[in-house]
């Protein structure tokens, strides 16, 4: 099972293990990681599951899809080159060790 790390705005880290085949947003929500709101439950409708992929991992995670890319212009926290919607990141063993940063605000 891939292990992923959410770094919260205050610098603390939450390490969670995720079942392959799920998405990063689910791993956060089912482990109660604060700051991933996911109002729409993963339907690419709300942009409240925004994360910044750690600079060292962007190549592994890849770029946003088209709809996601448009939505990222309207996240509550600023958009950065590493911004992604966590419900659009599928987890596989290749993403073991992934670090993402949770933004200050989501809504």
């Amino acid at each position, binding site marked *: 099972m891939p292990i992923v790390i959410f770094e919260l705005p205050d610098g603390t880290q939450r390490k969670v293990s995720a079942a392959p085949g799920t998405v990063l947003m689910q791993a956060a929500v089912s482990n109660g990681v604060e700051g991933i709101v996911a109002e729409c439950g993963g*339907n690419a409708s709300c942009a409240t599951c925004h994360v910044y992929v750690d600079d060292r991992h962007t190549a592994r995670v890849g770029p946003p899809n088209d709809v996601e890319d*448009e939505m990222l212009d309207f996240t509550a926290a600023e958009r950065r080159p590493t911004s992604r919607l966590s419900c659009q990141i599928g987890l596989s063993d290749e993403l073991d060790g992934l670090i993402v940063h949770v933004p200050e605000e989501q809504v």
Partner: protein
Amino acid sequence: MTSTRTDPSTNPSTSAAGVVVVGGGQAGFSVVSALRSAGYDGPVTVFADEPHLPYQRPPLSKKAHTDRDGVRVDLVPESFYRERDIGLRLGDAVTAIDTAARTATTGQGLRVPYDHLVLATGARNRPLPVPGAELAGVHGLRSLDDALAIGRALTTARDVVVVGGGFIGLELARVAVAGGARVTVVELADRLLSRAVSPQLQEHLRERHERSGVRILTGTAVHAIEGTDRVRQVVTDRGPLPADLVVYGVGAAPRDELARAAGLAVDDGVIVDEQLRSITDPRVCAVGDCARHPHPHAEGLVRLESVQNAADQGALVGRRIAGSPSPYASLPWFWSDQGDVKLQIAGLRANTDEVRVAPGDSPERLAAYAFRDDRLVAVETLNWPAEHLAARRLLERRTPVSAADLAGSTLGALARARRAAEVRT
């Protein structure tokens, strides 16, 4: 009631009684989660009449679920409540509240004291008022158990009749047609979603659903449901429709009877002030589908049935009880996934005097912009989440947008331009 110098409903000092939440749905969960995030350390207990961990309802009408294990609807796992010392009493309903003694009584006979009581009891489906509605094979859809029963029935159903062309009915119709059933939606009004979205979108939605194979009968009344043990047909004023499964969605009513029995002000929902406190007793508040509340974007009181409303109201009350009060002012928004149609609504459309419809940059995309006194107040989009989000950002900030501002442009373009201007200044 004793008089206190500080407002009792925002006083963070905790006595032993703590917070009692009635209802373990979207709003109740949001209350307890916000209480603990905001540092409240008194006792917190949720009473939920359903036997399930608090769950989300939207997936129930958007997918066919056949067994509990295959459904991922829990808001958070059980450990979340344990780690935060949140008491969860599943399968135990609150049956009475005594506002003078500040206690709640439960079906299992507990009598629980409270400092703050939060009503988060949600809504129940209006029954289908025709003979035969009690036959096997006829279902309302509100709870996880309803959804599981419908999901199992869909594995064999050939002819499905959906009574009511609202959000839940249309979502389920698309699930059923995708599963291979013949599906007919019967709607009394002349249009689908007649009160919820602008007429131009109603037509568009109808086309999309018909193209996917859903048959739609608007302006059609259901008179009876017939069958011996199980449903066999639905009698309408256009004749009988064969049916082995009937799902109805004809509106919901707030569960406000506890409040009414306790002597609190109720009128199609528990009446609350801008902090969501009962106007009769500030120790009691109501959130989510069961609350009727003032809103800066509305004239008079409104009652909203949406995840956004339940989640934001719950969080506001949790923070208030923990010591940070603020009036409720979140922008209302809603979504509905109907097969390949993602409908999103930002703002409140009531009392608008002009609606402009604009196509998006692909044939699947469409937006309806609603104005009141030439000021944008609500936006409905189809398959266009970015435009929906742009609408939310602009409406939240109360940025004035006129019909002229939008001519030949999109909100997305406007919002990007304004953001860029903000960054430059």
